[in-house]
């Protein structure tokens, strides 16, 4: 049976949903082994058992977080070699993709990013050119490295839990030599909302908000959604650049995407058109976003959004 190595970086006290998705996919492809970086809490160990992980690898050094990606890739390459893994799975975050990139060179392995599904034979599926094509691709090398987009696998614990053994992997000497060092880190204030890229629902606002993200935030909170924005809104400084959805921002594929006051220029469409359901609210009936919306409302978002928020609260009691 194929060995599948899953990289999980700093899980903290509980595994994120995207990590559970990786573990579920891994188990469908073979025997799953986790390469962990960071602290290993008891609850996380228990979750690995529930998801049928056979072993948890930990790095021999504890300073991987002080550098950008290169030593993490060196650690993961050592972990892949020591376990004989033929598939390595990572999350699709910018850092996940970069670790995958460097790992691919170290292992002479093909790297496929933005994966939404993997067949038993290792064929990966993804969408390209801003969601206009669905493609199937496969590594032609003995080892393949895949980064999985969130929200494409339903997390499911294993039928029979496992008791993973914990093994230390030696991080190669010198792997921090050619790495950029992090000299300062400021934590941002947590919004309490879901991560934009992982969220099941996204409510996004644009130019039509005229500087006031209140109605978008209130609707998002009523729905348990993440808040997104068009480039016009982030460039205007109405909301942090982290919230930008689109070709030069984040690509999201949630179950539901609500677009408010965004005309839907191609760069914005590129970031969200793989959403399962798209709702658009815009004053201008000619907005391109209405060409792709499943449900479109021509109207003033300052009337429509608060009314919807109040109605959701009422129905949820």
């Amino acid at each position, binding site marked *: 049976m194929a060995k599948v190595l899953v990289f999980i970086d700093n899980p903290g006290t509980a595994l994120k949903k995207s990590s559970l998705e990786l573990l579920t996919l891994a188990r469908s492809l073979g025997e799953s082994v986790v390469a962990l970086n960071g602290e290993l809490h008891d609850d996380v160990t228990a979750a690995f058992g529930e998801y049928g992980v056979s072993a948890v690898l930990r790095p021999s050094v504890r300073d991987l977080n002080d550098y950008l990606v290169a030593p993490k890739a060196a650690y993961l390459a050592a972990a892949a070699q020591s376990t004989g893994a033929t598939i390595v799975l990572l999350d699709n975050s910018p850092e996940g993709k970069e670790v995958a990139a460097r790992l691919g060179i170290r292992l002479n392995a093909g790297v496929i990013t933005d994966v939404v599904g993997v067949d038993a034979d290792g064929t990966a599926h993804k969408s390209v050119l801003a969601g206009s094509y669905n493609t199937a691709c496969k590594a032609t090398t003995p080892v393949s490295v895949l980064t999985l987009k969130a929200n494409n696998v339903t997390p499911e614990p294993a039928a029979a839990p496992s008791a993973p053994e914990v093994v230390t992997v030696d991080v190669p000497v010198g792997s921090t030599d050619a790495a950029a060092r992090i000299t300062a880190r400021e934590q941002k204030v947590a919004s309490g909302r879901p991560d934009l890229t992982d969220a099941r629902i996204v409510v996004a606002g644009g130019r039509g908000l005229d500087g006031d993200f209140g109605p978008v935030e209130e609707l998002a909170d009523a729905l348990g959604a993440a808040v997104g924005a068009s480039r016009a809104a982030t460039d205007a400084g109405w909301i942090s650049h982290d919230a930008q959805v689109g070709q030069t921002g984040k690509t999201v594929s949630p179950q539901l995407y609500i677009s408010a006051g965004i005309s839907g220029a191609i760069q914005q469409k590129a970031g969200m058109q793989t959403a399962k359901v798209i709702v658009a609210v815009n004053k201008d009936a000619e907005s391109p976003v209405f060409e792709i*919306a499943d449900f479109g409302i021509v109207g003033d978002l300052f009337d429509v959004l608060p009314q919807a928020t109040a109605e959701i609260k009422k129905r949820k009691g």
Partner: protein
Amino acid sequence: MKIIVLVKHVPDAQFDRHLNGEGYTTDRDESILSELDEYALEAALQLAEARGGSKAGNQVIALSMGPAGAVNSVKKSLQMGATEGVHLTDAALAGSDAAATSLALSAAVRYLNQDAPVDLIITGMASTDGETSLVPAQLAERLGLPQVTFASSLDVDGGRLVARRDADTSSETVEAALPALVSVTDQINEPRYPNFKGIIAAKRKTITTLSLADIGVDPAQVGHAGSWTAVTNAEERPPRTAGTIITDEGDAGIKLVDFLAAQKLL
């Protein structure tokens, strides 16, 4: 300082883009300089200008790998202010994945390193066609360089670079010794437009054309043959069609919630 900026000729995202032929490669008609590479070029020009520009010996070399048309991206870079251009082109490069692309580019960088060492390689955060953002990290790995990706500010001082990068949960200050590779986001600057003077000056600048033989790369290591991934199928997604469109008559918010409830999204 000697700075190489990677500039890619990509299909214009304003038009429909297509995958064609063996290996489902991108149709490169209607191509332009990748918008995200303009930020990389601007960052390089600002670093060079702060050090006295080309008169003080600072070089900004625009390097593009791609078919004949890719020279247009090199030319635009020269018009914006790059001091020289390099076009790596060879029929065998067609269909290269990120690993093969980074192999060819690493050989081109080594070639350009011969007369005077390269201090810095600057790239955009991703190309606007493949969008994998793998090439900068793979190029750094192949060249044994530190990489600083997604920089939203960049400064070089005494053989070290200092950059800021903003992630979702934190902002970081990072440092690396030169030579190094940096990819920059679209937050770092406002790229300049080529002005008339720049366009005239560009006509007198040198564009060097390199083949695989020039940089010592075996054609079997690149292109479809040398890639480590292969596209086995590509299907155009049916375009999304418009659904129900209503005009607000005072109750659209409630109709919206009815729609969400019917879709089991509440």
